């Protein structure tokens, strides 16, 4: 772990999401639905120097081991992110995020004429394309400004 990350704090148990695209840490928390109300300790590093990325963000969530399924959706905004599961201050598992086939309930459809923007009892569902995502209902394709449509 680098000196820069140590400045934020080392965690005993939980998840470290490293190599997040610089500036996306708050979106990462939004996508994961972490807003502090769950009582978990959360540390953020933003624009931390990184050998691989130049600058990066780091998110540490104490006391929660996030699943790969929960984390894969992050690949849409932070494709280089790596996931470290920490137990007793040691990294016991290290994974990269992978592009999921579908994204459920995380994004809202920007098409105002999409049925998912009405008061219907459904989650949004997007299929992940090579370049962007596509609403399973109205079939609208979003390629730009994905973070503008995060709805959590």
């Amino acid at each position, binding site marked *: 772990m680098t000196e820069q990350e140590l400045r934020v704090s080392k965690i005993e148990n939980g998840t470290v999401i490293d190599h997040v695209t610089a500036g996306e840490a708050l979106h990462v928390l939004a996508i994961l639905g972490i807003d502090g109300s769950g009582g978990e300790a959360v540390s953020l590093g933003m624009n931390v120097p990184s050998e691989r990325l130049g600058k990066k963000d780091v998110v540490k969530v104490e006391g929660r081991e996030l699943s790969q399924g929960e984390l894969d959706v992050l690949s849409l905004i932070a494709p280089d992110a790596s996931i470290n599961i920490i137990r007793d201050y040691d990294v016991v598992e290290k994974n990269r995020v992978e592009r999921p086939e579908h994204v459920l309930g995380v994004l809202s459809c920007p098409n105002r*004429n999409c049925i*998912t923007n*009405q008061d*219907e009892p*459904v989650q949004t569902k997007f299929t992940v394309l090579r370049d962007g995502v*596509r609403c399973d209902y*109205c079939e609208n*394709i979003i390629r730009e400004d994905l973070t503008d449509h995060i709805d959590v």
Partner: protein
Amino acid sequence: MRQDHLLTAKQLSRADIEAVLDRAAEFADDPAAARERHADKLLALCFFEPSTRTKMSFETAMKRLGGDVIDMGGVESSSVKKGESLADTTRVVEGYADGIVLRHPMQGSAQLASEFVDVPIVNAGDGAGHHPSQTLLDLFTIREHTGLDDISIGIMGDLKYGRTVHSLAHALTNFDVRQHFVSPESLRLPRSVRYDLHEAGAQVREHEELDEVLSSLDVLYVTRIQRERFPDEEEYQKVAGEYQIDADLLEGAKDDLSVMHPLPRVDEIAADVDDTTHAHYFEQAHNGVPVRMALLDILFQS
């Protein structure tokens, strides 16, 4: 058909389409043969938007199969006015009928409804999305006159919001068809349809002027450019005027060109075309009955 619902034309294979068209041809030849075929069936018509041809032809089709219809009526007089969700409306109607024909102003509405019911849902138009049963009758009409392979089709007008255009374009990728899309820049095919056509490996060209392709076409499918798509009347008049056809213009087309239109038309096809051998749009509308009979017959059997 492999699916229980007809939501988009994309779900239809060539074999699915041919099965419907073949059955429709049988019904067209001998309507009496189907008279008692579905005498025990009730079809619900849930039209959240106005419709003349689609609704009446589904009603006619169901009655010609020996069944009957129940009609939700206009939105103003239904529970929708009280704020009921589409999911709830369709779940209630499912208890009354053996199938649901749904027209709704929002894209994806038929997909959503299909997730809440077990009876077949037919998408009869979901906003600017799809209208696959119209496509089946379009294909039936094209097959009658030119066949569905080794032909060139021009599709002209409002390609961006035209749901009949989107469904037709998807379905034609099953056949050896060269598709020419003619529209003003502002009404080109939406990104989602262009994406699907590209993925399907379709033969597609886009044009701003009909002159560029008219002489090579076997079918010209004209759609209405709607006034409300333009910021002002002047701009609308200017653009719409460039996508109107009349008998004089068709002098430059093949003798056996079929002119089609999902109707209603306003002034995009001049009345003098009606008297030419090119005009197939009224026949196309009439084909809605046997084709929808065939579609319902197949959906009820699956």
